[in-house]
């Protein structure tokens, strides 16, 4: 019985990991400065390293790839959780405005603190580590607003949920723009680039800042993965099984917002990953969340790495924010889902 799902899952995961490795390979070898696999391996293994290769790999491409992977992983998982909790296949942290809420709050943070902290180089560390916390606050505020506006007759109305999310997203976007305009011009540029979802100023510091969040929260989410299966039932049945629905949903939602904030704080708002990845994951692995979550994470990784590769190279040397590439891929998929779902 379960073996059917399990073998399907392992086959698909193998394929996905293959795809991720391929994407990483393409990403690391191509660009303004092409390198061969041999160059990369020798550089990584520290066999006669050259400064040139070191710079490209360790300072530019590798941190980018790592960040892209982590962001994709986080958004893929958070998307699957949000869809599971809301029982809404069109829900996505980006569309619902959680990204934008986290983003606005981080912009406000940049506005108030960055200026002072930027003065002494060492305390920049502190600010980068604090950023996700601010993002978390904004994300929670957005989630609360969505609940207030979309909650009717004791349940979340599917369509209203999305529309409220879009509105909240627009509102936080306007707020971010407003705050960022008050910044000094150098900060402003950084903020605008960052807001449209990009990872080109990737560095190892960001990676260190986001990793603790992912390490703590993702296992916590995965431990509750089986509950997401039960959440597919209707409310009365879940309660009758003795599941503390509200409490468990709140824990899962807050954990996902934490993951999202960590992602948003390094890459800005990248929408649609949390929508597309869980869908494809369900197509591939079925309805069991202990399989869907890892698959969704892997698909998210692949999508972000690949999109970032496109963003970096299509119009090189000009860079396109990766968020825009993802949106162009994501919108047709969203419309396709909208056509498919029953009204």
């Amino acid at each position, binding site marked *: *019985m379960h073996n059917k799902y399990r073998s399907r899952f392992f086959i698909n995961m193998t394929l996905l990991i293959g795809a991720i490795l391929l994407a990483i390979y393409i990403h690391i070898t191509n660009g303004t400065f092409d390198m061969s696999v041999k160059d990369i391996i020798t550089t990584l293994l520290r066999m006669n390293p050259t400064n040139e290769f070191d710079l490209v790999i360790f300072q530019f491409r590798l941190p980018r790839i790592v960040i892209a992977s982590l962001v994709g992983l986080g958004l893929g998982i958070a998307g699957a959780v949000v869809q599971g909790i809301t029982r809404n296949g069109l829900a996505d942290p980006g569309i619902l405005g959680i990204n934008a809420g986290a983003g606005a709050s981080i912009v406000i943070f940049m506005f108030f603190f960055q200026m002072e902290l930027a003065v002494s180089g060492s305390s920049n560390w502190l600010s980068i580590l604090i950023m996700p916390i601010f993002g978390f606050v904004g994300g929670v505020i957005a989630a609360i607003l969505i609940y207030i506006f979309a909650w009717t*007759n*004791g349940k979340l109305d599917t369509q209203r949920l999305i529309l409220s999310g879009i509105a909240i997203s627009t509102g936080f976007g306007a707020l971010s723009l407003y705050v960022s305009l008050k910044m000094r011009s150098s900060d402003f540029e950084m903020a605008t680039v960052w807001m449209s979802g990009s990872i080109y100023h990737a560095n190892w510091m960001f990676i260190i800042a986001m990793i603790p969040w992912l390490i703590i929260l993702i296992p916590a989410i995965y431990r509750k993965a*089986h509950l997401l*299966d*039960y959440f*597919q*039932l*209707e*409310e*009365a*049945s879940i*309660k*009758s*099984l*003795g*599941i*503390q629905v509200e409490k468990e949903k709140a824990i899962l939602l807050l954990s996902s917002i934490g993951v999202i904030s960590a992602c948003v704080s390094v890459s800005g708002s990248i929408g649609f990953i949390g929508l597309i990845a869980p869908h494809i994951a369900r197509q591939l692995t*079925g*309805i069991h969340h202990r399989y869907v979550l890892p698959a969704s994470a892997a698909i998210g990784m692949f999508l972000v790495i690949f999109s970032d590769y496109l963003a970096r190279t299509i119009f090189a040397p000009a860079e396109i924010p990766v968020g825009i590439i993802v949106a162009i891929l994501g919108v047709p998929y969203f419309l396709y889902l909208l056509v498919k779902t029953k009204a």
Partner: protein
Amino acid sequence: MGATVIRAEKLTTKYEKFTVFSNLSAEIKKGKITTIIGPNGCGKSTLLKTIGRILKQQSGDVFLQEQDMKGISTKAIAKQLALLSQNPEAPLQLRVEELISYGRFPHRKNVGTLSSKDMEVIEWAMDITKTCAFRNREIAQLSGGQRQKVWLAMALAQETSILLLDEPTTYLDLAHQLEVLQIVERLNKEHSCTIVMVLHDINHAARFSDELIAMKNGEIITVGTPEKIIAKDVLKEVFNIDARIMVDPENQSPVCYGYDALPERE
């Protein structure tokens, strides 16, 4: 026999802003089949859901085996009491056996695997509800009657001594209605399960119940045996019908074989 297993005291429940009933008290006797009847909107489903802690009461208490339910964890309650809701939903790709295994949730410590005890109970639930034949099918492939039996099996897998059923026969054809009720009867007789259900069909209620609770406009009009409730004056008061009643010679339960609507009363 005759011990009270569930006691509701001065319950007030609101649905949104509308108070469905207030200060309602009721008792459910151990090992009996109790059926709540009444016209649409009288609050019978709401009462069942409040007893089953699906809806939260505004005030009042529900006692389960003389213990206040507010003080028992929801998981502990789920080991004693299962509720089959009126419109259950499940993902269509879910397999029957898996859905039934969801019923084991309150008993499971390790979420990964089912224990042999879990397996045993699931087999038993499928056996009683005769759902073994399609255990490997997906929910999407089942007929309405089959689905209802699967849902019943999931509630049974909770292994509780009390079963609450909210209109278990709605949307089913005559044969399936009877089949579901016979399963319920068997559970009661052979496994001394206490059953509380909401039914629309008063003849079914009369035939399968030990006790009836007749409700109207958020109040309990009267409580008693089918012989007492399925009577001209009670039906007139509760449903506003002029009923013709006889006794079924096969099983001695009262049967309403025809009725006329009475003029609306002020």
